[in-house]
């Protein structure tokens, strides 16, 4: 990975702040990650770590009080942050598409699925009937039964799982180079989750797009993704191939996450491990490493100097003094 000229998406040193009543909240600091072509990259971290902010900054749909204070987002050779509203609109729903977290509220309640799915094809130079055919075909691919009849239905006629599939169908209709998935299965139950993930894999094979898959669920990431990016409190603390991360996690936070995953606990126990402490205040940032107040392997340098991104092994990066000092476990 790294500054791969062949990447679909290349985020370099992205920093974003939010203007709040308490002051400037440093939501993202020096975020660097990339998405190779036709690969699934998982973006994992706990709630509030900035995953959604990263996603929304890629299609530039941030809140009004967001300020980009540095960095670039390079997509297909152009910097998204420098694009005009018209250029952005050209890319959205065409080269980059998105599946949102909550299927119950992401679809327009007063327009039929037909309307919504044909509207997004407005760029295509084909007639309405053809647009409808493509919509029907995509609905069938995601597993909606009787798609042609159901085109006329409204979102509230579908269950949550079905709505999410419709959202995925819409996202893939555009034949994008990059699909952003913001925790698409969080609002669904486990069996549905498995089905949807399975289908995503199939569809990705078929459409040949890259996927940036955001989740806080490690098992999901392990199953679906080729690469993983781990975020903590607005920073990328580790990134690499999924096997490297899961077998040889370099950053203490990643290690702790893996330990805390209930699915990986080997023996029966009454005590579920947690990471003690809280995320630091992002308005008044502490000095040094952002994880220092909770790190089980913290030492003096951690509290004074912030660590830099370091290549632990080819393609595997971590931001930790332990790796730079040579003390890799």
């Amino acid at each position, binding site marked *: 990975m790294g500054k791969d000229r062949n990447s679909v998406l290349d985020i370099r040193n992205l920093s974003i702040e939010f203007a709040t009543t308490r002051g400037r909240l440093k939501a993202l600091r020096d975020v660097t990650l990339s998405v190779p072509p036709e690969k699934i990259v998982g973006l994992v971290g706990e709630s509030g770590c900035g995953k959604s902010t990263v996603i929304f900054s890629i299609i530039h*749909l941030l809140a009004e009080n967001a300020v980009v204070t540095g960095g670039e987002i390079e997509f297909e050779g152009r910097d998204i942050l420098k694009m005009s509203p018209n250029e*952005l609109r050209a890319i959205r729903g065409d080269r980059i598409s998105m599946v949102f977290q909550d299927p119950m509220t992401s*679809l327009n309640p007063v327009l039929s699925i037909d309307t919504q799915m044909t*509207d997004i094809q407005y760029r295509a130079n084909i007639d309405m009937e053809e647009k409808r055919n493509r919509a029907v075909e995509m609905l069938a691919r995601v597993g909606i039964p009787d798609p042609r009849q159901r085109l006329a239905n409204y979102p*509230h006629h579908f269950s949550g799982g079905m709505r999410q599939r419709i959202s995925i169908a819409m996202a893939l209709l555009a034949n994008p180079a990059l699909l952003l998935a913001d925790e698409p299965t969080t609002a669904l139950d486990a069996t549905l989750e498995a089905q949807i993930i399975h289908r995503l894999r199939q569809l990705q094979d078929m459409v040949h797009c890259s996927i940036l898959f955001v989740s806080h669920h490690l098992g999901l990431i392990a199953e679906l993704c080729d690469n993983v990016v781990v975020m903590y409190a607005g920073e990328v603390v580790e990134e690499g191939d999924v096997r490297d991360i899961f077998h040889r996690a370099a950053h203490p936070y990643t290690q702790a996450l893996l330990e805390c995953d209930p699915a990986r606990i080997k023996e029966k126990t009454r005590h579920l491990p947690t990471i003690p402490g809280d995320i630091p205040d992002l308005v008044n940032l502490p000095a040094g490493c952002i994880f220092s107040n909770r790190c089980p392997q913290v030492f003096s340098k951690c509290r004074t100097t912030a660590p830099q991104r370091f290549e632990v092994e080819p393609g595997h990066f971590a931001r930790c003094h332990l790796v730079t000092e040579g003390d890799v476990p």
Partner: protein
Amino acid sequence: MWIYLVKRILLATIIVITAVTLLYSMILAVPGDPVTVLLGPRSTPEMRDTLRAQMGLDKPFYYQIGHFLLNVLQGDLGMDVFSNRPVSTIVFEQLPHTIILILASIGWAILIGVPLGCYSAIHRNSFVDKLTGVFSVGTIAIPSFVIALYALLIFAVELQWLPAIGAGTGGTLVDRIRHLILPALAVGLGWVGYLSRLVRASMLEVLGENHIRTARAFGLPEHVVIFRYALKIAILPTIALLGVGIGYLLSAAVFAEIVFARPGIGKLIYESVMTRNYPIVMGSVLITTIFFVASTMISDIINAGLDPRIRENL
């Protein structure tokens, strides 16, 4: 949807029936001989006898009410003993003038108010938005007859740009329109503010919802997002409240008709109040109330029709 329709119509009917009952019973709540109350001091004994016989005032109360209700349902609102013509005829003669005034007022209020509300929502906290906000509150608060009087004073009397009196009946279409401008302005001004506030609030709420974010994330052109995806939803609460606002319009129209000496229900009711002619007053109030109840009902039904969620939930 049909169940909703039936329920709603039933409710409206019950309210109208209660209204009739109320208006009629008020006569009997007043001390003194009902007939004298109804006809006032100017009436002659013959008139009083005619009315007494007509209304069956010697019969028990529930008979009177029932009799009256039946008559109302058949469109008979009683007779005006002064002119010897049916009340309903008198009222319906005047109704079209008022309706034209109201439609004209609504028309221009929508034309200006809705875009203003949309613009305010999209450009929140801009100068235009803040100015519109103050203007909206102001024009709804200030009584419509004050606006009407000032308009009359400034434009008709002092500047003499527009006519002050009447509806221009008997004149050309242009003439009639000229006579309509000031009254429609006075009646509609409050609504411009009202509508723009409503639309603004609705739009802001809708624009913040997730599905709008989805629409934008798919790169839909902004005008499609605003009008097809947002306004369609935002317009619902606006339409629902339009029905209620008709009440304001009716009151404003009454005053406008009096101030500008236009023919219509307002003028009719005013003159009847002066002559203590309660049957005409009652008839006018009844007709306008039915109008009001009907418009609230229609806007509720339209509301239900537009939103597929309501349509099927009942």
